[in-house]
């Protein structure tokens, strides 16, 4: 099975983020990490590839930096990567991202496309479904368990109350939830092997886009302002002298959650 996994490099969430005051974009350091939620997609991809004798190609769009995050996924065992890193992409919204990724995927022609359900930094949670639509693929979303047999993918689809069993014939797109599998740690052997695995870096022109198709010009959305989240105030202590439950109910009514 030929598998493509969409992965994103993001600034290390353990280090403070900075926004460019003019463009409101996150300032990207050279060192980025693999988005933690994408480790699950990579692991599912590797397991399916191992079971079927297939390959895993990573597909990513974004400022490449030193490609450390991509190498993390290659060190886990993915075979190669395609990273679209074109200055013209600056300021692209989610739909443009999906269009660019779709252009790469059309060339790669995978049997299965895997994505996370929601990225850690952008978390619009729309890219996988947009991709499925653009590629005309059935989409199996929010998988908490994945298996394959006879050219079909079966998943348990996480819902608010339990799960649904869904299946689709290949080719298809799959989005996996965090915790679906236990992502492997890269070994030193894997880290060394990742050094020499191919990383293609096509430009948007290579993918058939012009400058007007991408970036802010190609995006229907625009960030008009950014504000710091309000500081979290001190909690309110309710002391129980027999009547605390009434106080709590009143409080919950005040904030309109009941």
């Amino acid at each position, binding site marked *: 099975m030929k598998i493509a996994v969409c992965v994103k490099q993001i600034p290390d969430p353990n280090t403070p983020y900075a926004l460019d005051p003019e463009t409101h974009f996150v300032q990207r350091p050279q060192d980025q990490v693999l988005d933690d939620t994408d480790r699950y997609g990579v692991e599912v991809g590797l397991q399916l590839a191992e079971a079927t004798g297939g390959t895993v190609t990573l597909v990513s769009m974004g400022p490449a930096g030193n490609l450390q995050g991509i190498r993390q996924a290659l060190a886990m065992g993915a075979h190669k990567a395609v990273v679209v890193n074109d200055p013209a992409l600056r300021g692209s919204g989610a739909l443009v991202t999906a269009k660019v990724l779709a252009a790469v995927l059309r060339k790669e022609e995978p049997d299965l496309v895997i994505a996370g359900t929601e990225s850690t930094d952008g978390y619009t949670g729309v890219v996988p479904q947009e991709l499925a639509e653009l590629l005309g693929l059935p989409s199996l979303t929010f998988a908490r368990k994945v298996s394959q047999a006879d050219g079909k993918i079966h998943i348990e689809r996480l819902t608010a109350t339990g799960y649904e069993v869904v299946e689709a014939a290949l080719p298809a797109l799959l989005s996996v939830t965090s915790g679906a599998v236990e992502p492997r740690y*890269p070994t*030193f*052997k894997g*880290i060394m092997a990742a050094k020499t695995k191919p990383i293609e870096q096509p430009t948007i022109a290579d993918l058939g886009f012009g400058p007007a198709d991408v970036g802010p010009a190609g995006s229907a959305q625009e960030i008009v302002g950014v504000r710091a989240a309000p500081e979290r105030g001190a909690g309110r202590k309710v002391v129980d002298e027999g009547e605390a439950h009434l106080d709590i109910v009143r409080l919950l009514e005040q904030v309109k959650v009941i």
Partner: protein
Amino acid sequence: MDFDPSPEHVAFRKVVREFAEAEIAPHAADWDREHHFPAEVVRRMGDLGLFGLPFPEEYGGSGSGLLTLCIAIEEVARVDASMAITLEAGVSLGANPIYRFGDEEQKARWLPDLVAGRTLGGFGLTEPEAGSDAGATRTRAVLDGDEWVINGEKVFITNSGTPLTALVTITALTGPREISSIIIPAGTPGFLVEPPYRKMGWRASDTHGLRFEDCRVPAANLLGERGRGFRQFLTILDHGRVAIAAMAVGIAQGCLEQSLAYAKERQAFGRPIGANQAVAFRCSDMAVAVEAARLLTYRAAQLADRGRPYRQEAAMAKLYASEIAVDATRHATQIFGGYGYVDETPVSRFYRDAKVLEIGEGTSEIQRLVIGRGLGLPL
């Protein structure tokens, strides 16, 4: 000269740190309290390739050398000495003798599992009457037809009685003043494993006394040449001493980090305790010592990886790193005050765990002896 680690070493350190913090750190205090050897976690360290770091790919290793092993041991020791010594002994004392001195048949039989961390090996050198003076071995091995018959006793042998233990390599007298190494497979009749010691530290690490009562193994279990046992274990210990130094660096690093965090957060007299020079300077000194120990350790490891002599450097790294690690645990416990004396903080465990670093694989005195002799002194 280059003090910069490679990007691959940086990435690998990060992976091992993540592994240690997720899989080991949260349980270390429980294992310590219960003297529990977590075989499952050892297997997972095996899956991560840690036991195979210095061995070639043909046996399932990654051929990445002693320096890379040091980084792994350091990161594990930073959160738990017991798992670090399990790894250190598994590699340096379990697999390394077979790799260095075994014939092809012995290597093919034992190495793939040892290298993968599916099994562990022990190295039985120390005896009740032969510790620092390891050449004073009294355990005897007598050839009877095509079998060695072994009688004697070993003490303090790491990884010798775990559920994963497959073998112990022992030194024994095979003739007058003739020491040889022999592989004893676990479960061989006459190979008796005493109950585990109740230890001050390294409580989740497995240590036993061993007895051999007419224990018979095939003549082919002789490791390397007959009569070469003394030289063999000196070679094995050089490697092990660098790895022990890495453990010491890890413990000291853990102490430094814990101390810094606590010194900034703990308030006394209306300000953080780290605002007092008496506390802050302890941290400064600790940081210098950790850095110096790390450099000594990496240098010794790099010499080994380049195939150059490193006995002197190994002894220096082991001596210095283990002594500053013991100091660091003392400083950290002091900085933590009363909280440093109770089980709830890792530093109290580090305090108990560090001391043996000045004893195992050659005491500090023995390191000074080796170094002094290396300097040409008539010791």
